[in-house]
């Protein structure tokens, strides 16, 4: 079973990286890049909401901070892209720790509201602090990044396929990291905090540390991906903080199932490709997302991953045929 799963993951990765070899269709590559970016934001949100149970609206803020920091350092200070991206991820992490620490002193309810205000504050700052961020026009014409490789080689990211490889690679590493965290002792402690915080505390788990860890990791990944993504777009402007991204990633996590690693990954892929192919206008798409969100909250709170989990538990509970049945069987 485990070997089968590893084989499936390897096959999936090979297929993803083979796509640019098979097609030069830029539309497909653009979808791939946007899947890579959105899935990392959604994966981070899943870590924060699905594992430690903090509803966060700040992920898009971390994404944008990464983007702006990288762009400004490269354009104004002449840093290399990689240094800029790392700085962006670092700043996003720092900011995440500050808002997490300040609001979690009160409650997880305050965290939700503060994270929301933080995301809006980011947009306001990007729009109105013209001396730093150039205001609503943003920073256009970001240069083509060049990556220095060992043995004197360099990789100029000019074609869409180059960015596809880069972002897919970063996304694969990010998801690998998230997977390691959620399947380790850390992930079990996080789940315990979400299920029952006082009980987890009584077992010697410090909830604040794990919450901050989840926030910091998600901020770091979102910041790094944001820094790379703006160079793919070649422009960064305040619309990078658009609430639309928040709503879309929330839908990805809710439909995929909060706390389900594979569910969220799958729903990110489906929700990147499907609405785009169906060519809905944005307004109608958001109306549809809203209806899906309401329906999910009323009838389907665990998402797809939660449904699979319930089914698995029900199967375990079913008595085997032929087993002695001296206890009344539990039927859901």
């Amino acid at each position: 079973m485990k070997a089968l799963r590893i084989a499936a993951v390897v096959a999936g990765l090979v297929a993803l990286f083979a796509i640019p070899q098979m097609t030069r269709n830029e539309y497909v590559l653009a979808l791939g890049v946007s899947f890579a970016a959105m899935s990392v934001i959604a994966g981070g949100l899943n870590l924060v909401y699905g594992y430690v149970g903090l509803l966060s609206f700040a992920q898009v803020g971390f994404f944008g901070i990464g983007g702006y920091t990288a762009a400004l350092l490269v354009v104004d200070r002449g840093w290399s892209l990689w240094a800029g991206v790392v700085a962006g991820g670092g700043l996003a992490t720092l900011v995440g720790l500050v808002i997490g620490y300040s609001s979690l002193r009160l409650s997880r309810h305050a965290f939700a509201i503060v994270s929301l205000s933080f995301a809006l504050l980011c947009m306001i700052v990007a729009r109105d602090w013209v001396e730093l961020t150039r205001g609503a026009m943003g920073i256009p014409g970001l240069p083509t990044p060049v990556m220095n490789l060992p043995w004197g080689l360099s990789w100029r990211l000019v074609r869409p396929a180059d960015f596809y490889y880069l972002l897919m690679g970063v996304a694969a590493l990010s998801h690998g990291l998230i997977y390691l965290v959620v399947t380790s002792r850390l992930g079990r402690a996080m789940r315990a905090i979400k299920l029952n915080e006082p009980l987890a505390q009584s077992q010697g788990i410090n909830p604040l540390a794990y919450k901050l860890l989840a926030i910091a990791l998600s901020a770091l990944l979102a910041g790094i991906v944001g820094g790379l993504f703006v160079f793919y777009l070649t422009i960064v402007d305040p619309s990078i903080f658009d609430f639309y991204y928040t709503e879309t990633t929330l839908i990805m996590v809710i439909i995929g199932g909060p706390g389900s690693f594979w569910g969220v990954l799958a729903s990110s892929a489906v929700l990147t490709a499907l609405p785009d192919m169906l060519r809905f206008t944005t307004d109608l798409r958001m109306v549809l997302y809203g209806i899906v969100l309401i329906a999910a909250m009323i009838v389907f709170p665990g998402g797809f991953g939660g449904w699979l989990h319930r089914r698995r538990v029900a199967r375990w509970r079913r008595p085997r045929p032929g087993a002695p049945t001296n206890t009344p069987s539990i039927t859901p």
Partner: protein
Amino acid sequence: MDPSFLAQLLLNGIVIGVIYALIAMGLSLIFGVLEIVNFAHGEFYMLGAMLAYFLTAHWGFSYWPIIVIVTVVALALGYVLYEGLLLSLHGEGFERSILLTLGLSMVLQNGAVFLFTTTPKMMETSLSYSNIVVGDLRLPVARVFALGLGLFAFTALYLILHRTRIGKAMRGVAQNRDAALMVGIDPRAVSRLAVAIGIGLSGLAGAALAPVYAVHPLMGFSFVFKAFAIIIIGGLGNVSGAAIAAVMLGILESLAGGFLPLALVDALAFVSMIAVLLLRPQGLFGRGVRV
């Protein structure tokens, strides 16, 4: 410093603060009684303003009937909202309530964009261009009426909460849900009324502000986030605290708008909120400990 300029800023600040208060009080009331953060609150403000606009532009209603109609419709919408959606949460799941109302907000907001487009509309009433002039001060009548309506609604809400049986029951549920249940308060009736009043206030704010600002589908979006900051500053679930914080914020914003670059004005609410959280997490006026 010119004193009449200062007085003008102060007056404008009070007017906008009272309107903030209308929205924030409803949000705080709903949070206090149901422990639900209503993300769709701003959309009801928008719907109130939209309805007011269409009543004037298409059916030629005058100011006072519009205020009454919009408030009654909003009260009814609140009733439907509670019975139709919020009841299914069974009081559990703070996050679920946020996501549910966020979904509702997406439907209402984008639905309005789809139907009416984002073009701002101006509501023309008989009071649109008239001013009250006192000495050097100049106040548009529509703003004065908005101020009056806000004060009236605040007084009415205060009297309901402190003088009537159902209002006392509401405060009882907000203070201690279990104890309220034990003495035989019906949480469903109380919650329903709290949501209806909250949405009603939001609709009233929309109707009162429609002649002052342009009406468009995204107007509720920015407003409601300010209201979130206000209820944190005032202490989550504390209705009077929210009202005071709202008026303070309105005055502060108006004064800041006179002296500081515009960029800082919008950020003021969020920065004060984060400062309050760091220095006095329970909010300026207490409560919030229970949350």
